[in-house]
């Protein structure tokens, strides 16, 4: 499994020739605010039914939330209940919500199609939890870790990227609900009060570009 890991530094070492045909170029960090929904037509697989999907088909009338997450990361797990609650809640308010698992499962049975489908069901996700089997959607976003959220407005322009809130370990001690505040602002047609945040997180285990 370790050999399958690919950090940002490793991407920078991949030769340009390997990236030409299929994979979008590696991006240093998340795409800039104002960027139109990247990778919108790249292939994803909805874990719940195994069918192909794209972000372009999952956008909402008021905005779109894309969260890169996975099943095995302690940080993603710590925030999972809160993110799912936000996703379920704002999906009913005109936000298209998609969770994306871009981890190359390698030999890890905790990731991959079956585990992701099980996760979506057990956590009662009322939106797609999709596999990014090539990791190309994550590359297009410049996503690096899990969980990492990207929120787009009704025109599909990026208005927020970053973390969920300011306390992964202790939900009761959260003082800044960055993503919730951004979602509410987008639903109201306003700019998020905070547009970019950071957090510690697990590096995405990228599948090698082909």
């Amino acid at each position, binding site marked *: 499994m*370790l050999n399958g890991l690919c950090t*940002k530094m490793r991407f920078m070492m991949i030769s340009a020739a390997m990236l030409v045909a299929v994979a979008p170029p590696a991006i240093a960090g*998340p795409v800039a605010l104002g960027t139109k929904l990247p990778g919108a037509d790249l292939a994803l697989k909805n874990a719940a039914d195994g069918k192909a999907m794209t972000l372009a088909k999952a956008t909402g009338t008021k905005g779109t939330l894309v969260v890169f997450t996975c099943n095995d990361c302690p940080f993603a797990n710590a925030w999972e209940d809160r993110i799912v609650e936000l996703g379920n809640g704002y999906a009913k308010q005109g936000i298209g919500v998609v969770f994306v698992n871009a981890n190359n499962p390698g030999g890890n049975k905790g990731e991959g199609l079956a585990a992701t489908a099980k996760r979506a069901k057990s956590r009662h996700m009322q939106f797609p939890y999709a596999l990014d089997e090539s990791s190309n959607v994550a590359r297009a976003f410049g996503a690096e870790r899990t969980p990492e959220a990207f929120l787009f407005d009704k025109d599909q322009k990026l208005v927020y990227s970053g973390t969920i809130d300011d306390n992964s370990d202790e939900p009761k001690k959260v003082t800044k609900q960055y993503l919730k505040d951004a979602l509410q602002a987008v639903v109201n047609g306003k700019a998020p009060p905070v547009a970019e945040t*950071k957090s510690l997180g697990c*590096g995405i285990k990228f599948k090698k570009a082909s």
Partner: protein
Amino acid sequence: MAALSVATTAQARKKIAPVVVPADLQTILSEVRRPGAAAVLLNVWATWCDPCVEEMPSLMAIYKRNRDLGLRVVLVSADPRTQSKKVSAFLAKHGFDGPSFLKIGDDQDFINGLDKTWSGTMPVSLLFDGQGRRVKTWSGLIDQALVQTEVDALILKAKTP
């Protein structure tokens, strides 16, 4: 006699399980800036972080090669506070007996306080000179030879009058 002394020191080091101290950014930076080192290498990691675990042997090789030459290695774990025994056991297994912390406090303050260009993805290694000035940041797996070159330069610089 000298060989016996080295062996004894090595045995003593092997037996010591590092105390892992919960610490905020300021406490960690105080350790980085504490006088007495020619260079300080700070690494942020976690026991559940696969690439962090993967690079630990390289990090320990740098530590063991340079600790008596003036390099201080400071490890900061992002594991939950409840995992301090696991962190300590892991570091003992790798023979680390230097300063070790469990990060507490706000993530953004911590990340930006170390290096504003760092996204928060682990592992990350930051190299400081003897005055506590950051000179390099490596995000992702370290290149042991590259880090050694930078450490050598700082140790040499510290020796130069």
